[in-house]
């Protein structure tokens, strides 16, 4: 019996190391639901026990039930039937049924709708675990933000209509946003929403690249104000799958074959408005997308973890030149760097999820009319800062984890060599599955545009100051000095870029964000290396299988922090040189350097 939660020492360590009590208190709104619901915890300790038990069950389901089906899911793919319905591969249908039976399809929904009311951090851990078993399943399990959006913004009767069915797994949903001419630029959405004489809303038009567009409940972004172009002409609607919604086409994709990507045609489909008109894109979809970005970051973690494990095993067991290939310096380096990047991504993702949990919690206090006015005022003040931080960390996590996942899955194939390129091993599937993560829910380039505003707008400097002011163990003092030096370099870069104007900021957005992430992750590693949590992890040094040699995790994290910070210090210097070069040839010389547009076959 396997368990993708219990067998992952980094997750086990972080679960103990991170201070979960405050986010549990926020999620449970001061534990006011205890006694009202069988499932509501009475204190933080009980809440944390609940998180641990549920993740344990999910880890078992992922390892024993879902993972063995992933290969057949990839081979079988989804089918568009002649009657316009879509069939999932058998393994996806069975896994969804098992997830529904495990009560985990309403992870963050409130108790009153039959949800678990868990924080986003715990949901991120859950998405990673499920994605490690099958990346494409995440596109349904990890889209619970659809139900959250209904919960945050819709009227009570819409909540009552849909949320219990989401929580019980009776229905799945889709975010119906993209159109043929509105991909990254959602402000260009054309699908029409109109009202009849009685005020009932209908949808008409085409949507494309819709993940799980065959789901039962569709959240549709549509133009409700025909005279108004741009984002303020758009509203968000909810409708049921029915005869007026047709799946016209299923995309034939490189990876995530278990996830149906649909083209939808809405033929005067009855629907209901979510919240207020004109706030569809600017408020509701932005909130929905932020959650989905964290979801993709977590999916990326799961894919990378799965690939790393295959590579680690192969490096130890494949013999060449008279010994295992892990004895070769180049292979050793790859194996450690893969692990280092995974742990850095996890640190950043969990920190981001924690900040988002603070944001959601403070928001509840600020908006609750029953809150003590002084407490509500204080919450509002803290909220401004937290919102800015979440708005920077969310795209950073999506960017870092998805790019990391691509690097790691490619390196996994490299470690396996020719075998890795063959379909006999899962590494090629994982690399195909990974490829979408830097594209959907906002491309890497768009994440950088979002994150660089926080980097140049002062948020990162304040955050780095805060991180530097934490208490750390004596053993990381020299590393903190390197990080302080890096922070100084970042400040110089930001000052230089500001003089060059907004265009230049976007041009060097990636190196700027890379420096910022390297520094943030450096501090997060130092924090882990300073952990007082007594947790031991097995090493590869000899010892028999029953009693492997172990080291304290904090000691191991110190080694990891040192490697990460020293290697990145060199990177930071190089990136700073590039930024401060002021090279604008991209603008000036594009036509010449890119040359004439070629004619394609």
């Amino acid at each position: 019996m396997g368990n993708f939660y219990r067998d992952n020492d980094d997750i086990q360590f972080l679960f103990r190391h991170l201070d979960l009590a405050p986010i549990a208190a926020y999620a449970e709104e001061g534990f006011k639901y205890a006694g009202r619901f069988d499932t509501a915890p009475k204190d933080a300790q009980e809440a944390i026990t609940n998180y641990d038990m549920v993740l344990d069950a999910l880890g078992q389901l992922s390892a024993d039930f879902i993972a063995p089906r992933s290969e057949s899911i990839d081979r079988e793919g989804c089918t568009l039937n002649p009657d316009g319905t879509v069939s999932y591969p058998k393994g996806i249908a069975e896994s969804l049924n098992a997830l529904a039976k495990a009560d985990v399809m309403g992870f963050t929904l409130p108790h009153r709708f039959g949800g678990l009311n868990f924080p986003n951090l715990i949901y991120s851990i859950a998405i990673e675990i499920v994605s490690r078993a099958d990346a494409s399943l995440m596109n349904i399990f990890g889209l619970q933000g659809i139900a959250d959006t209904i919960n945050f913004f819709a009227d009570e009767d819409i909540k009552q209509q849909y949320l219990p069915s989401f929580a019980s797994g009776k229905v799945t949903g889709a975010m119906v946003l993209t159109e043929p001419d509105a991909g990254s630029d959602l402000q260009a959405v054309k699908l029409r929403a109109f009202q009849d004489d009685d005020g009932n809303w209908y949808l008409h038009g085409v949507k494309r690249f819709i993940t799980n567009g065959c789901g039962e409940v569709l959240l549709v972004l549509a133009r409700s104000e025909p005279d108004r172009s741009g984002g303020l002409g758009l509203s968000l609607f909810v409708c049921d799958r029915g005869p007026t919604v047709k799946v016209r086409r299923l995309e034939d994709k490189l990876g995530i074959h278990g996830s149906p990507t649909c083209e939808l045609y809405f033929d005067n489909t009855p629907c209901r408005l979510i919240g207020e008109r004109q706030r569809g894109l600017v408020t509701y979809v932005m909130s929905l997308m932020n959650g989905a970005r964290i979801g993709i970051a977590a999916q990326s973690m799961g894919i990378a973890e799965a690939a790393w494990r295959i590579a680690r095993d192969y490096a130890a067991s494949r013999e060449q030149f008279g010994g295992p290939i892990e004895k070769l310096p180049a292979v050793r380096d790859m194996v450690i760097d893969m692990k280092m990047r995974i742990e850095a991504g996890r640190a950043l993702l969990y920190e981001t999820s924690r900040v988002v949990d603070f944001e959601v919690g403070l928001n509840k206090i600020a908006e609750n009319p029953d809150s003590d006015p002084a407490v509500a005022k204080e919450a509002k003040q803290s909220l401004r800062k937290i919102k800015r931080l979440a708005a920077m960390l969310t795209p950073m996590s999506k960017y870092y984890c998805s790019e990391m996942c691509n690097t790691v899955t490619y390196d996994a194939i490299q470690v396996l060599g020719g075998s890795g390129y063959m379909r006999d091993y899962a590494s090629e599937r994982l690399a195909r599955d990974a490829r979408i993560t830097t594209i959907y829910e906002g491309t890497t380039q768009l994440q950088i545009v979002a994150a660089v505003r926080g980097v140049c707008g002062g948020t990162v400097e304040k955050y780095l100051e805060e991180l530097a002011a934490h208490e750390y163990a004596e053993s990381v003092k020299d590393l903190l000095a390197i990080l302080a030096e890096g922070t100084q370099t970042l400040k110089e870069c930001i000052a230089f870029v500001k003089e060059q104007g907004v265009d230049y900021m976007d041009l060097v957005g990636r190196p700027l964000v890379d420096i910022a992430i390297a520094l943030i992750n450096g501090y997060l590693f130092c924090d882990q290396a300073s952990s007082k949590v007594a947790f031991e992890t097995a090493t590869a040094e000899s010892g028999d299988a029953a009693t492997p040699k172990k080291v304290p995790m904090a000691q191991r994290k110190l080694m990891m922090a040192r490697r990460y910070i020293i290697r990145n210090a060199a990177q930071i210097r190089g990136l700073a040189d590039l930024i401060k070069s002021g090279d604008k040839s991209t603008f000036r010389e594009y036509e010449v350097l890119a040359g004439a547009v070629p004619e394609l076959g």
Partner: protein
Amino acid sequence: MGYHCVVLVKQVPDTKRITGQAMNEDGTVNRAALPAIFNPEDLNALEMALDIKDTHGGSVTVVSMGLPAAADILRDALYRGADRAVLITDRRCAASDTLATSYILSCAVRRLEPDIVLCGRQAIDGDTAQVGPQTAEKLGLPQLTYVEQIQKLDGQTLVARRNLGNGWQEVKTTLPALLTVVDSANEPRVPRALRLMKYKSAKCRIEIEAMAKDAPSIDVEAVYAALESKGLLIHQWDLDYLEADLRWCGRDGSPTKVHRIQSVVLTAKESKAVEPTQQGIEAMVHELIEDHTIG
């Protein structure tokens, strides 16, 4: 119509993680040396019972005879969907062999008046596969062993497919009946999150008493009543409650005696290398046909 299913479950040492300290010198199992788990095929039996409940309605009661620690697997069964859990624990049950165990279990099952009794084919510690059939005998129930699938259930009768290893057999029986279930029957569901959060506090009396020993401020009767009112009580029965004849229980009721323990070490006396080529495999198959191992 609904069915009342009773599932007999056992907590067993995880024999996959066996080490040198697995056995005591007297030939009994050293339970302290191994982690205790839900006997795997009992999970298949529980899954079959829960599936009957999902399809036809009714309820599922799990029963285990064992040490107080066996309450762990009863909680696990509650997490997965069982409605009620009963722990038979009594010092006088100690050293029961399969015959005595079957007798005690049959006393408990009789009180529960089930339509269908299900148990795993066998436990991974003793591997006897005797308890199910013996319990059926003592209850005078028809027994269907090695059940892989229930094919029909219509209130009065049940048709099941038995996996006999080299073939299947379809058997029809009247109800009530006892079924022993094999691992190929199904994939047991995992604990349900909402039930985990609720039933993690479920306890039996002896566990409440143990808590009170550590924290004297705990009022055992008050906790017991509170758990009972919330449906979080694991029922605890002893031999007096079962009105069991003590001559049939424990050591007195157990004719089985361990005569000798032998440590069997398998060593290869003769081995032959087969080339991993088509010719190599063909030669090996030919040889196996020649000596009538296969074919």
